[in-house]
């Protein structure tokens, strides 16, 4: 039976994992992810799942173990955040290159320094070039839904790439929201059985994983991942559709709100999409034709879907919760690249906001959008900074 519950984002991810019942989980606690593995460890201890839970001494070991266990042929989940993800960094591209489709929840938290435990996208964005598929969540419901969707995309025979489910630290991980559960049997049927390709533990067919490549093989193997990422775009669309049929909640490569007749479009990632929708409502009430969009799938980059949304707009404002200091936010150049194919390029603006948990408010977003419409906004705005 499907029911609505009150739950925070971390517990929602753990709940989805309990319903999927993966073979192996190895993780190291780090705020604001800790509740996920704490809760999941409780499910393991209570015998509610058949998962082998491995306590490791660090995130580096966690991801190494998960990559190996996935290679061996076990469906494997892990979770981390911030410094933990940074500590995993050495393994991130290896996991992707070995094409081990493990699932990792990332409770987005900024990366030190200065030391700060609050939310921004610094951790995920610093890991974005490692070859992982990346999903972002607007609310607790999406953190839960993405956790169910993730293995389907990652484990698809033509994809076989690891996947990150991003949920904003504290804003989603620790906030209790109303959420609709999916029936466990439906989830088991939807996710299906894990069918690994050439697993190490298939002793009748000996294989070797993680081999060394000379230049004649390294680049071709990287291109193989390019092809898998392109495939992931199609697969994600199919899986979103199928999930929509199951639950009535339909996700898109790029989720959009009131973009059709909009003159100005804001692009935003994660929980701020909700804040931006409220901003759009306010601005619409005042007669400004605004819309907003969020790449639900961030890697592979849904360029065509974004270009379609931006077509014919006066201006596009890209809100980034991370900054490549000395350049722009990570979303901005990619949105501009997506727009470059359009016949007429909208005016493009970048807004850096919410770093290290700085306020991301409707008032702040609204003021920025008004400045854009009045032609007063600079190319890059550091929202709320007093200097």
């Amino acid at each position: 039976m499907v029911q609505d519950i009150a739950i925070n984002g971390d517990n929602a991810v753990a709940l989805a994992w309990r319903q999927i019942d993966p073979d192996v989980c190895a993780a190291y606690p780090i705020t604001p992810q800790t509740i996920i593995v704490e809760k999941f460890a409780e499910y393991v201890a209570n015998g509610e799942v058949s998962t082998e839970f491995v306590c490791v001494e660090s995130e580096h070991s966690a991801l190494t173990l998960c990559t190996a266990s996935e290679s061996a042929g076990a469906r494997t989940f892990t979770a981390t955040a911030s410094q933990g993800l940074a500590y995993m960094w050495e393994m991130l591209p290896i996991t992707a290159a070995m094409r081990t489709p493990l699932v990792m929840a990332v409770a987005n938290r900024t990366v030190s320094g200065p030391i700060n435990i609050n939310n921004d996208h610094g951790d995920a964005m610093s890991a974005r070039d490692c070859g992982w598929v990346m999903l972002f969540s607007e609310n607790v419901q999406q953190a839960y839904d993405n956790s169910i969707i993730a293995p389907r995309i990652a484990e698809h025979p033509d994809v076989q790439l690891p996947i990150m489910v991003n949920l904003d630290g504290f804003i989603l991980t620790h906030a209790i929201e109303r959420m609709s559960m999916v029936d466990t049997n439906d989830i088991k049927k939807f996710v299906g059985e894990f069918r690994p390709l050439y697993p190490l533990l298939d002793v009748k067919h000996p294989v070797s994983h993680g081999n060394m490549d000379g230049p004649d093989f390294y680049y071709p193997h990287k291109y193989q991942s390019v092809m898998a990422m392109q495939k992931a775009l199609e697969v994600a669309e199919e899986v979103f559709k199928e999930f929509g049929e199951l639950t009535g909640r339909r996700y898109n490569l790029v989720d959009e709100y009131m973009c059709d007749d909009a003159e100005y479009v804001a692009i935003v990632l994660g929980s701020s999409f909700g804040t931006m929708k409220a901003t759009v409502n306010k601005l619409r009430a005042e007669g400004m034709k605004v819309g907003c969009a969020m790449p639900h799938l961030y890697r592979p980059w849904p360029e065509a879907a974004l270009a379609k949304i931006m077509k014919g707009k006066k201006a596009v404002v890209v809100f980034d919760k991370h900054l490549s200091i000395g350049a722009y936010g990570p979303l901005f150049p990619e949105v501009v690249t997506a727009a470059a194919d359009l016949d007429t390029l909208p005016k493009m603006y970048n807004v850096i906001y919410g770093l290290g948990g700085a306020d991301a408010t409707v008032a702040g977003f609204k003021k920025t959008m008004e400045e854009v419409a009045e032609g007063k906004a600079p190319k890059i705005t550091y929202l709320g900074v007093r200097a």
Partner: protein
Amino acid sequence: MVMANVKDLVVGGRIVQAGNSEKFFTGDWRSFVPVVDQDKCIDCYTCWIYCPDNAVVFRDDKMSGFKLTHCKGCGICAKVCPKNAITMKEE
């Protein structure tokens, strides 16, 4: 160098044929080549055990030389030989 065709590759660079390192000729890395003095050699198999590339050849329990397609000239055989029967010569 000609790059491998992506269509021929197994996912993630996995090697699904056991023992295909035979096809990878490491011999062209070599700058020193091992030379055996058969008068000193006692066919004890020590070099055969230590060779990282299976490049020491034995026939009928007799050490008969080196497989130069795979010997990369590391010199381990010369180092471990109990009779100093192997010397490394610059090629």
